[in-house]
C-alpha cells in the first residue's frame, strides 16, 4: 500500500500520552474500538458496477440483464466483491486539504510505528444483504490484532488485522471485511 506517513489522529495522540509514548501499548489500547464511522460519499450506482465488470470481463447476466436481475434478486444489485468500492473516498473534494485515505486505521498504524511501507497480505469478506443501486452505505473500522515485530523478505515491521463493517441505510448488515496488513521498513542495501 502507501509509502507515506499521515498525521496521527487525536485519539492516537491521546493514546500515546496515556501510555508513556509507547506505540505498542497505544495501539493495544485501540483494540476493538469502533473508529472512523462514516457514510459513503455517493449512492451505489450501476456505472461503477459496469466499470468493475468490464475490468474483469465479467459477463454474469445478473448484472447486465434486467430480466435476470428481476427474476433472481428483485431488481439490480452490485457484485458482492465491490463492497469496499462504495467507501473509497474521492481523491479530491471541495474543501478537502489532504488526500483522504480508505482504511485509515491502517495508515494510522504505519505512522504510529514509523513504518513507511505497507502491504496487505490477507483479505476476508463475508457478504450479507445484497447492495443495490441507490443504497447509501455506512461503515466503521476496528483494529482486532497487532503482532510482535516480524522480519520478512520485504523488511522488518508488524502485522495487524483491521475489520471494516458495512451497513445499508436501513441498518441491515451488508458485509464484514477483514484485512491483514504488514507495515515495514525496507532493509538498507
Amino acid at each position, binding site marked *: 500500500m502507501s509509502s507515506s506517513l499521515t498525521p496521527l489522529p487525536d485519539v492516537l495522540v491521546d493514546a500515546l500520552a496515556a501510555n508513556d509514548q509507547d506505540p505498542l501499548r497505544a495501539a493495544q489500547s485501540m483494540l476493538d474500538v469502533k473508529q472512523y464511522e462514516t457514510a459513503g460519499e455517493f449512492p451505489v450506482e450501476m456505472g461503477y458496477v459496469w466499470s468493475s465488470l468490464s475490468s*474483469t*470481463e465479467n459477463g454474469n447476466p445478473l448484472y447486465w440483464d434486467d430480466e435476470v436481475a428481476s427474476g*433472481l434478486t428483485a431488481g439490480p444489485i452490485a457484485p*458482492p466483491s465491490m463492497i469496499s468500492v462504495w467507501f473509497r473516498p474521492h481523491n479530491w473534494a471541495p474543501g478537502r486539504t489532504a488526500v483522504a485515505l480508505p482504511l485509515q486505521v491502517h495508515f494510522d498504524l504505519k505512522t504510529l510505528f514509523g513504518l513507511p511501507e505497507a502491504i496487505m497480505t490477507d483479505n476476508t469478506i463475508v457478504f450479507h444483504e445484497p447492495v443495490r443501486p441507490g443504497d447509501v452505505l455506512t461503515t466503521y473500522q476496528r483494529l482486532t490484532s497487532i503482532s510482535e515485530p516480524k522480519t520478512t523478505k520485504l523488511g522488518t515491521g508488524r502485522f495487524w488485522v483491521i475489520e471494516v463493517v458495512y451497513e445499508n441505510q436501513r441498518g441491515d448488515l451488508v458485509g464484514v471485511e477483514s484485512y491483514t496488513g504488514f507495515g515495514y521498513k525496507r532493509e538498507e542495501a
Partner: protein
Amino acid sequence: MVEPTLLQTEVTAGALLPELSYDVTATTVVLGALATRDWRPMHHDKDFAVNRNGTRDIFLNTPNQAAWFERYLTDWTGPHGRLGRITFKMKGSVFPGDTMVFTGEVAETAVDELGCGWVAVDMVLSVDGETKTTAHARVALPTSTDDNPWSRQADAWRP
C-alpha cells in the same frame, strides 16, 4: 425465470473448475484500480511502484483481485451462485506482462440447517506456475431448479 446453470446437488468434492487464463496489461491494472476507486500510485505509476514500493512494476490491487475471483466463480456457477464468503492470501504481485491462470477445486459441499446449499472452493491465481494468490470461497448454489439462494435474507442467510 432463469433456469439454474449448476445445482449444488450436481457438485462433488474434488471436482475441478474450468481453468481461466488472462493476459495482464498495464490497462488491466489501471482499469482495475480505477474501477475500484483505488487512486494509490503503485497501481498506476510505475516509477512510484519501482522506486518506493520496491516492486518491478505497477501491480493488481486487492479489491480488483477479489473481483477477478468472483468472476471466476460465477463463470462456473452462473447467476444463481451467491457468494457468501471469500478469503484470500496474496503471496506475490501480478504485473503487466503476466498471464494470470485461475484454477479451482471443490473442497466440500453441504446443506445448512435452513436448507441452503453450499459449496466450498479452493482457488489459485498463478503466473508461470508460481502461486500469486490463494483464495477460499463459500458460495451458495440452488439445491433444486426452483431454489434461489438470493431469496434468503437476514437470519435465513448464514454465510
